[in-house]
């Protein structure tokens, strides 16, 4: 199916067969996702107070209505879409709300769950708008340069606002904190996909050959490297290294997928190594992160008590195989950012390795569905867009989950859907909406060919 070329049409005997649209599966899975989230919400209340929390019905109804509206939108405008994408989004978002609500119980003065619910609603609304308004993803190709301009503007914006916790990545408007970099990554993915789709032949087959590496011409490569350098430069200035790493990964992945030059991987890794060494030398902030990663318990040995990473590792360890149960862990010991960057530690402690693996596999499925859509599509822009969006999720999960579990140096970043942070939730819903759109196109093109 993925390699469906022009020959397929000729081979098929009966044009009357239509592919199943699988919307019923989607609805069933959404119901399961909502019920699981409500169960988690109740489990927290039962563990903490012995009673079902008073808001359980409202919470379930709210999440259910949002999911159903999204489902209806998909039914109306993207009937061929992949049926796993939306339920995974609903389950992860619901689980994130449960975890944030659970951590709110430890910080009665600072409740994040209601705000997160508002942002989730906005996210689902954006999802619905994108699914309804964007009839064909190829339209986006036309706005590539608008996207990149907007992305750069968004990335530059926080520089003019005061730094929060050492990073200039937030802007505060009317009580809401917005992280413009989150939106920028989708826009950049669109731009990269559009630009590479248009220029991939030039990138792949022209230019000088140095040893075994085929280098592209400067005329083609110039703009893309410039934009990448600017975005990374802005991020280093803003001290948001997680996003910087994400952009870099996205850039290299798409470049490789578009051109197939292994040389890009070599150049990419070289650039990454140089960048890492330079930033590690110049930025004390980054340097200390690397030291923390190498010796997470150094601060304990120095008599200063455990740092956040050590606390995070303690939380995961306390979870063991099956976890302490929702509401019964002590991940709040992590302190600052327990609800955002370190939210996964709460999942690890209270749901155990079993629950953590389930969450990883949900992300894995989401990414896999994105890649699958990319494989099924025929237009290069759609393929690159699907791969790019899925890669954003994959890289983001790896960077932050690897960071809080001590696999790689910790860089601040939001766990998609789970972590507290409005911009992130909204962006993730936009990603899922775009994936729904491209997966719908992938399936629809096939169906139309069959029908023809």
């Amino acid at each position: 199916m993925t390699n469906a070329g022009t020959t397929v049409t000729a081979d098929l005997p009966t044009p009357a067969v239509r592919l199943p649209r699988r919307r019923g599966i989607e609805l069933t899975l959404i119901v399961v996702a909502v019920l699981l989230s409500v169960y988690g919400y109740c489990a927290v209340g039962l563990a903490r107070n012995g009673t079902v929390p008073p808001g359980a019905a409202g919470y379930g109804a709210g999440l259910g209505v949002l999911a159903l509206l999204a489902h209806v939108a998909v039914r109306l405008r993207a009937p061929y879409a992949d049926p796993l994408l939306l339920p995974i989004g609903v389950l992860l978002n619901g689980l994130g709300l449960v975890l944030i609500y659970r951590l709110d119980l430890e910080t009665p003065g600072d409740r994040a769950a209601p705000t997160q619910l508002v942002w989730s609603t906005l996210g689902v609304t954006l999802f619905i708008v994108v699914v309804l308004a964007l009839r064909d993803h190829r339209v986006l190709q036309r706005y590539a340069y608008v996207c990149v301009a907007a992305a750069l503007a968004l990335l530059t914006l926080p520089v003019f606002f005061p730094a929060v916790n050492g990073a200039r990545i937030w802007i505060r408007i009317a009580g809401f904190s917005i992280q413009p970099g989150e939106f920028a990554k989708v826009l950049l993915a669109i731009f990269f996909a559009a630009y590479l789709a248009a220029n991939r032949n030039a990138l792949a087959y022209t230019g000088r050959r140095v040893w075994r590496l085929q280098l592209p011409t400067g005329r083609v490569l110039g703009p893309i490297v410039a934009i990448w350098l600017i975005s990374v430069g802005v991020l280093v200035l803003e001290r948001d290294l997680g996003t910087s790493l994400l952009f870099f990964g996205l850039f290299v992945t798409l470049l490789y997928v578009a051109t197939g030059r292994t040389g890009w991987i070599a150049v990419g890794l070289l650039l990454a190594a140089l960048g890492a060494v330079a930033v590690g030398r110049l930025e004390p902030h980054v340097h200390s992160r690397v030291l923390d990663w190498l010796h997470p318990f150094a601060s304990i040995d120095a008599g200063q008590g455990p740092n956040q990473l050590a606390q995070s590792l303690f939380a995961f360890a306390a979870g063991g195989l099956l976890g302490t149960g929702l509401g019964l862990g002590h991940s709040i010991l992590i302190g600052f950012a327990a609800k955002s960057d370190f939210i996964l530690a709460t999942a690890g402690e209270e749901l155990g390795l079993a629950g953590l693996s389930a969450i990883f596999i949900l992300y894995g499925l989401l990414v896999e569905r994105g890649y699958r859509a990319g494989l099924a599509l025929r237009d290069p822009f759609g393929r690159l867009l699907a791969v790019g969006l899925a890669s954003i999720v994959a890289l983001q999960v790896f960077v932050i989950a690897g960071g809080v579990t001590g696999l790689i140096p910790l860089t601040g970043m939001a766990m998609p859907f789970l972590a507290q942070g409005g911009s992130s939730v909204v962006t993730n819903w936009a990603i899922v909406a775009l994936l729904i759109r491209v997966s719908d196109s992938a399936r629809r093109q096939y169906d139309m060919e069959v029908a023809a």
Partner: protein
Amino acid sequence: MTDAMTRHIRLAAAFCTLLLLALLVNATRIQVFQSRPYDDNPANRRQTIARYDQPRGAILVGGRAITGSRDSGEQLRYERTYRNGPLYAPVTGFASQEYGTTFLEHSEDGILSGTDEMLSPLPLWNDLTRAQNPGGNVVTTLNPAAQKAAYDGLGTRTGAVAAIEPSTGRILALVSTPSYDPGALSGNGRTANRSWARLNSDPDKPMLNRAVRQTYPPGSTFKVVTAAAALDAGVVTDLDAATTSPDPYPLPGTSTTLTNEGDGCADAPLRSAFEWSCNTVFAKLGVDVGVRNMSGTAEAFGFNDTGVRIPFAVSPSTFDTSVDKAQLALSSIGQYNTRATPLQMAMVAAAVANGGQLRQPYLVERTTRRGGETVSTAGSSRPVRQAMHPATAVQMKELMEDVVTEGTGTNAAIPGATVGGKTGTAQHGIGNSGTPYAWFVSWAQGERDMEPKVAVAVVVEDASADRSDISGGGDAAPIAKAVMEAVLGL
């Protein structure tokens, strides 16, 4: 072209799979293989949180809990509370979230905090369920009336009381004054920090458990040991036969002479020498008995025993075994290096009262689960030691009774009971300049009792400002009397 891109997408997907696998493997490493060392890291507060996450078990006196737990609503949730904290502080000690535990709170911590494996209904049950046992209870041997009588008797004075049931070794009262409220140290906030600083800088040392952790020169009360040694060794065979003891008594090998407070001690027979506490007679008796026999008897009573636990450790009482004759003479009247805790002197009186048999003292009758099922009991298999011949014990009882009926200890006499006692006034400080310690050790047997029911030791450090008033009979005996009455129910 499309095929090439498909291959690239597949490779990129494989790379993402690799990232996912790396995350899963690393999560397994931390959550399964590193789990134990991380859990046990002292900087990991989870074990501390779990410890205070449930109410601590109770310490019971006379069937009533003297401790409780308060839900502080903080991260370390339950804080210890005490009913009559100062009264029972020498027994309970404190259980502080910041400063650890002492005394029963320390030695029975496993039961009280619920970590003792004996508390779980089935072996390995808790490992499976991740459940925590509720804290168990510790039932003490204390007699609440005796404890209160001792505490009230000491009042504002500095001192200590220890009372034992001679036939079993059960500790009936253990009091130290001035005392403190251990509840002030329970929490972890500023209040607890301030209390800790205040108690530690207090010159009266309220947290010092004088009944078991402070040794005093026992003074004349030690003459019970010396008399028993003399009778056991056969140095004295007839209580009423005159001894050959000069007054004043020149300490052997020195030019120092020892005198008495009163007259009539020269060549006094053991009975009247004991009754009137003649230093000269007992100093010479000690020398006549010799170092070996004196040490033997003292150690049989429990001196020089570094391993006494009730269940918390008791400071060893000392009788110096490498002494010359002059030092032995002084040691035998409870001076020089002879030092004893009040509990040790109560053991001396108890051994006399119990026919020469010394039962190891103990404070915990039994431990139970929260529901009341017994986890362990003190049992009757506790070691017994013969401190003196039974015949010697009979004679010693007679001597001690005489002290109360007509000697220095008449203040301890109880109508309707047989009481034996011995007073003591111990000089201390450089050149004996310190305020003397008033001692009284005694035992009592009610008219209808088959055997003595209580043995007491009382020490009062600063009995009063007026030095001449300080005496074992005057200051300490009434307190002992009140304790004995409380036990006998008179």
